[in-house]
């Protein structure tokens, strides 16, 4: 059967992402690319102390090009640390996002599709989880287990699964009553197959939106936990840890704390805008 381009485009297979999506994804793709390639870059300045060049200001504030974003109290290059820190910040955010997305989506699917007591149990659990502020949860686990990257990923995944579960549950609840599901059921397909093969793909769009927004939230949460000294700790570098490192130098060398904070804000801003653009893309009612 011949399908012309217009039909294929209408089916959404060949549709190109809209301009805002491309422009909003570009900086993030670039940043992640730099973070991934960081071991290949000359970033020795991130860890090597140079006591002859401590607290150099950034270029535009009277510094030199040897430290474009300045240096910290041990003469380490802020730009190099920012790039190395991005690795851990992004890795934690990405891993926690996936670790929260998978169980959250599956539990939401189960609750929405099965309904009844299963739904009630899962929904109550999600409510209970949401009632514990993520930061407090992280602090409690760190107190009993010590801090490590895997503890952070575990806690952020635990704090974010209800977000997916709630959205997916609501979406599946309405999909379940749609004619195509009844048709499949009438055709004698098993419930498990209908749920996984036919209902689940229909919620991917909304899951991507939630995942994008959650990634931003996790970057903020990681930075907050590390800022308090319970997350990433030296010699590891993350943006939150850099901020914590610089907070006591605020009056003498503002850039050590201000620059990583700015990096966090810009990345989260970019991620939120991308999430909003994706939501607009997914929801035909919001399209103009």
């Amino acid at each position: 059967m011949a399908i012309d381009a217009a039909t294929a485009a209408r089916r959404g297979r060949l549709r190109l992402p809209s301009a805002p999506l491309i422009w909003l994804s570009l900086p993030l793709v670039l940043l992640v690319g730099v973070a991934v390639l960081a071991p290949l870059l000359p970033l020795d300045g991130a860890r090597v102390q140079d006591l002859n060049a401590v607290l150099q200001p950034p270029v535009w504030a009277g510094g030199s090009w040897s430290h474009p974003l300045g240096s910290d109290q041990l003469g380490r290059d802020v730009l190099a640390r920012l790039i190395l820190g991005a690795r851990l910040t992004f890795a934690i955010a990405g891993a926690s996002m996936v670790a929260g997305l998978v169980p959250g989506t599956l539990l939401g699917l189960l609750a929405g599709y099965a309904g009844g007591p299963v739904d009630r149990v899962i929904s109550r659990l999600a409510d209970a989880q949401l009632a514990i502020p993520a930061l407090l949860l992280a602090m409690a686990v760190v107190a009993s287990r010590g801090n490590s990257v895997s503890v952070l990923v575990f806690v952020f995944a635990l704090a974010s699964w209800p977000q997916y579960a709630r959205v997916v549950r609501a979406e599946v609840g309405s999909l379940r009553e749609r004619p195509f599901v009844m048709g499949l059921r009438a055709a004698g397909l098993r419930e498990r197959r209908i749920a996984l093969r036919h209902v689940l793909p229909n919620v991917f769009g909304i899951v991507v939106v939630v995942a994008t927004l959650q990634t931003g939230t996790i970057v903020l949460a990681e930075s907050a936990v590390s800022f308090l000294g319970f997350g990433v700790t030296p010699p590891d570098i993350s943006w939150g840890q850099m901020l914590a490192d610089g907070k006591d130098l605020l009056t003498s060398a503002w850039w050590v704390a201000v620059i990583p904070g700015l990096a966090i804000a810009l990345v989260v801003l970019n991620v939120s805008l991308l999430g909003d653009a994706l939501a607009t893309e997914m929801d035909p009612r919001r399209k103009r």
Partner: protein
Amino acid sequence: MVFLSRILQGIATLWLSATVAFFLVHASGDPAVQILGDSATPEALDAVRANLGLDRPLPVQYVESVGRWVRGDFGDSLRFGQSNLSMIGDRIGATALLTGTALFLAALIGIPLGMLAALHAGRLIDRVTSGIAVLGQSIPVYWLGLVMVLVFAVRLGWFPVGQFTSLWSLVLPAMALATLPLAQIARITRASMMTSLNAPYVVASRARGLSPRSVLVNHALRNSSLAIVTVVGLQAGLLLAGAVTVEAVFAWPGVGTLAIQAVQARDLPLVETLVICGASAFVVINSGVDLLCAWIDPRIRRS
């Protein structure tokens, strides 16, 4: 009827939250090692375990803990040697003052801002407001606090630095803490007002010749109030987490600073009590909001 079922639901949620907190603290690691450090002798570890009751099977500890919670007994702090609840009680006032002021500021600025944006949808003021709203939820709160200290306290000298002297020292931390809820409240107010402004009853009241002011306040805003009350309540619950970092930046003598000290000292009974109190505050606020919504909107009461 709504009242009773909402309270029962709140209690069930709270019990589950406390259970999650209990198992996270007790089953995720060896608290005794965290308390004494890696170099502790086995005898010392055993002594701590016996002292905290950690040597008994987990289900036994859990049942015993639930029994104590129901009686309102949350134990004593390891680090400070005082009752956990009384220590939290001593500090709750400072935190309530901070978060209450922040929420008040956020609603006071966020609701009119959202309304203004909705009334001038697509125009410059709408874009600026939406920009501020997205920016506000991307900035790390504690970092904003640090920058505010740098600019307003250190450089300009308008505020005292680093101590809790008068109500004047409330301004900067409350403003820093207010940004995130302000952004969310403005966003939701705008979205909900956009819906109500285009609703048939608003168009009809405008056609009937009601003054724009009356249409806006009595019809559009009133029907948006449900969404606004819900988001304000949700933000009140979320402020608890933001308060921890902001209190750390401003050395605010509240529950957040206590939580930081508790984690630093690996004071598990205190940490556990703090988590349960945090969840309780969240559940109480949200149940209150639900009841308020039922009171505002008769449709919810009848369903």
